[in-house]
């Protein structure tokens, strides 16, 4: 969009900036839906302050003719709804950026050479009848620039508001039109036209964010119990399961604290439910004793941990990949675990679904490690395929001589549940004998440790291999895990180098054995992580015995941007 008036761009990045409670989310919601229903690929993510009102938040929306799934620093169009918007984004606004807003509001911050569309949102909205319509006015302005016909937008608007009173719908249509018309009549108006993909496939795709993908995956995995305590940015999964889970018989309980949450969920698994908890770092710290309990009881448990920057309260609404070590080593004593870190919405869905089966099968804690960036981002993606999903219930009906911790050939003792069968189910947090009774038989202790730790090998056999993208004969390997994947992928794609591939881990523990070879093949390895201590690189060193050449780290509370990271990588390659 070097010269937006002439260029037919195919990838526009739009940033909405305003105060909390100011309606940028409404603009986002309407605008992205309009664009998607017109066949465009859309992506959106937000960054926000830890406050209910005021402060400055921003939303990035990307519109393209090709799939877009990553954050970029570049701002083609900035819609500034509040004083301070431009300053707030000063590192990202350039002379190329088209600024849309009320000149009155933004004038202090606008520099001479900047391109500006001065559109009096509030005034126009008042003309329609109420200031609240200024959001829709802004949408009208945006679609005019994106060359979408008002009729096409209006159809979509009607859908969005279909449950609202007719008068309100009409007013919104009016506001959209007014925004559109005011903008196209601007003296310095120019627009871009992206050809929408001919296939029309986008329309059938779904638009979900990371937390919805996790929540849907949980339902698909047979989750019927969630006990949790609210904590940003993990609450959205609790909210999702309370709201949507209702129709699926999911019992959603807000616990008094995180300790209760995890102990309640472990109790639920004991009685045959499929339970999960959702939390963030600080809440999880409180759960670590419970994780150790699951280790000893050999109880399944699924834990969704959405990371935010620490230590302590840290930056509650920002993002970081800072709790990998915590999750790896949480809980006293030694016992195995499984850690997934989805980097795509599909992975979030399928791996969460899978987590319930694996937890049940191996009787271990399974983690879904996401972060604020991941749960709050969305793009269009294929509807999740339920044919690939199956709830594998691994519990058995017990016989009279049932022993919960029977020493078997393969480390796994069949899991009974109370009330199903003639046996008794004895779960014990002390070191126990095969029946589940406290023991001080120290030879048995060794067997029980070996049994518990031995499961790790079985688990490893089912580990998800890392995904390799790019040329097969790579010299450089850019390694990433979890939420950074789409960003790194776009960056490396952009660089288009024949010598560089991306290796993406969505299961970070235990590592698939194949990972070692893939990494050792590279002449140069770079690990990109959203933290300060290079935790995944450390994990690779211990568990894959590889030493990486470069760590690219970011720990200011924001995610990476594909355009900036591309430059940074290029320098290292």
């Amino acid at each position, binding site marked *: 969009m070097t010269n937006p008036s002439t260029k037919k761009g195919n990838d526009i990045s739009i940033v909405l900036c305003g105060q909390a409670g100011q309606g940028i989310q409404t603009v986002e919601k309407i605008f992205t839906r309009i664009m998607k229903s017109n066949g465009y690929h859309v992506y959106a993510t937000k960054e926000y302050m830890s406050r209910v009102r005021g402060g400055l938040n921003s939303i990035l929306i990307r519109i393209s003719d090709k799939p877009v799934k990553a954050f970029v620093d570049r701002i083609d169009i900035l819609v500034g709804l509040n004083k301070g918007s431009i300053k707030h984004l000063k590192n990202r606004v350039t002379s190329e950026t088209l600024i849309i807003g009320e000149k009155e509001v933004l004038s202090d911050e606008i520099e001479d050479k900047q391109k500006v569309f001065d559109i009096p949102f509030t005034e126009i909205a008042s003309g329609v009848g109420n200031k609240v319509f200024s959001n829709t006015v802004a949408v009208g302005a945006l679609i005019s620039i994106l060359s979408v016909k008002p009729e096409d937008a209006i159809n979509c608007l009607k859908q969005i508001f279909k449950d609202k009173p007719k008068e309100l719908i009409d007013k919104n249509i009016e506001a959209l039109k007014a925004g559109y018309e005011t903008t196209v009549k601007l003296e310095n108006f120019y627009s871009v036209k992206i050809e929408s993909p001919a296939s029309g496939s986008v329309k059938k795709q779904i638009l979900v964010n990371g937390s919805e993908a996790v929540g849907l995956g949980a339902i698909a995995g047979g989750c019927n119990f969630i006990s949790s305590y609210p904590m940003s940015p993990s609450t959205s999964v609790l909210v999702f399961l309370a709201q949507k889970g209702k129709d699926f018989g999911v019992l959603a309980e807000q616990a008094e604290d995180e300790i*209760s949450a995890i102990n309640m969920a472990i109790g*639920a698994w004991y009685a045959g439910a499929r339970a999960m908890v959702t939390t963030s770092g600080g809440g999880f710290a409180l759960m670590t004793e419970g994780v150790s309990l699951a280790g000893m009881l050999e109880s399944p448990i699924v834990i969704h941990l959405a990371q935010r920057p620490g230590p302590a309260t840290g930056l509650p609404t920002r993002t970081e990949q800072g709790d990998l070590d915590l999750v790896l080593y949480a809980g006293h004593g030694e016992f195995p675990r499984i850690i997934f870190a989805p980097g795509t919405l599909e992975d979030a869905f399928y791996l969460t679904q899978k987590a319930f089966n694996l937890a049940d099968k191996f009787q271990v804690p399974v983690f879904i490690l996401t972060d604020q960036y991941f749960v709050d981002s969305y793009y269009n993606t294929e509807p999740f395929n339920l044919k690939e999903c199956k709830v594998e219930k691994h519990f058995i009906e017990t016989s009279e001589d049932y022993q919960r911790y029977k020493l078997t050939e393969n480390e796994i003792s069949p899991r009974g549940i109370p009330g199903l069968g003639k046996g008794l189910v004895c779960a014990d947090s002390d070191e126990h004998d095969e029946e589940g009774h406290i023991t001080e038989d120290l030879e048995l202790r060794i067997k029980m440790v070996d049994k518990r730790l031995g499961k790790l090998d079985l688990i490893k056999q089912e580990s998800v291999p890392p995904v390799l993208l790019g040329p097969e004969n790579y010299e450089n390997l850019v390694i990433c895990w979890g939420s950074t994947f789409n960003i790194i992928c776009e960056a490396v794609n952009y660089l288009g180098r024949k010598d560089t591939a991306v290796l993406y881990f969505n299961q970070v523990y235990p590592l698939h054995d194949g990972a070692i070879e893939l990494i050792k093949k590279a002449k140069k390895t770079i690990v990109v992580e959203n933290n300060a201590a290079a935790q995944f690189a450390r994990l690779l060193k211990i568990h894959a015995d590889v030493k990486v050449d470069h760590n690219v780290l970011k720990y200011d509370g924001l995610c990476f941007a594909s355009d900036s990271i591309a430059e940074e990588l290029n320098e290292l390659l």
Partner: protein
Amino acid sequence: MKNEKYDMGDIDIAWCPGCGNFGILNALKQAMEELKIEPTNLVLVSGIGQAAKIPHYLKTNFFNGLHGRALPPATGIKASNPSLTVIAESGDGDMYGEGGNHFIHTIRRNPNITNIVHDNMVYGLTKGQASPTSRRGFVTPVQVAGVILEPFNPLAVAIALNAGFVARTFIGDKEQTIEIIKQAINYKGYALVDILQPCVTFNKLNTYQWFKDNTYYLEDSYDCHDRNAAFKRATESDKLPLGIFYINPEKTPFEENTGVYKQNDTPLYSREVDYGKLESLISKYALV
């Protein structure tokens, strides 16, 4: 009466000779026999402590979890399968100290479980430190100048939280204890039975004799439906009244209130995901 159904035969019990825990174990077994509850249908949930070892000494399903954490799993179990009889049983330190927050909020939540507390006014397993119910002045290896904290009054707090069933017994009276345990189990909702239990090893203050001298029975005419009266009696400290302090017959249990069993009363383990419904939920995200 022999408690055969629940009997474990000749096992090694880690309690001291003369400990009040034995009486509670017997009372519990007998109450369960009398109520004709099958061991396979009972789940005993405990924490850690001397009292919390009780599930190892009778034939039953059990969940012997973490110190202080008997109530959350008990709630999770009951809520996942309401047809089970669930008893959360532990010591005073476990339930009122480490687990104090769960005590409060489980009462508010009101699952249909019975909460039996072996109240020996001391931390037995860890060798004699003060527990929340220890009396002022009680000298221990840690409270070297005697306890200076106000003793925790579980009954008064439970009544303040509007618990539905609140009782205290003394294991010196096995009959009353059995009777009250039975009533507590039959109560539909959270029921607290605080059982005064001498620890003959670490509590030389609150002995069998002390409990005999410092307790009395609520009179027959006492009306256990009056919350204010119950509070008043619960705060008596000269002598501790025994009996049922408070019953609120109007509460509905948590698991019913969740709505999960409204249309379907099968336990969660037997349910299947409605993939058709899920498919249509997912497809809604394709619409604007």
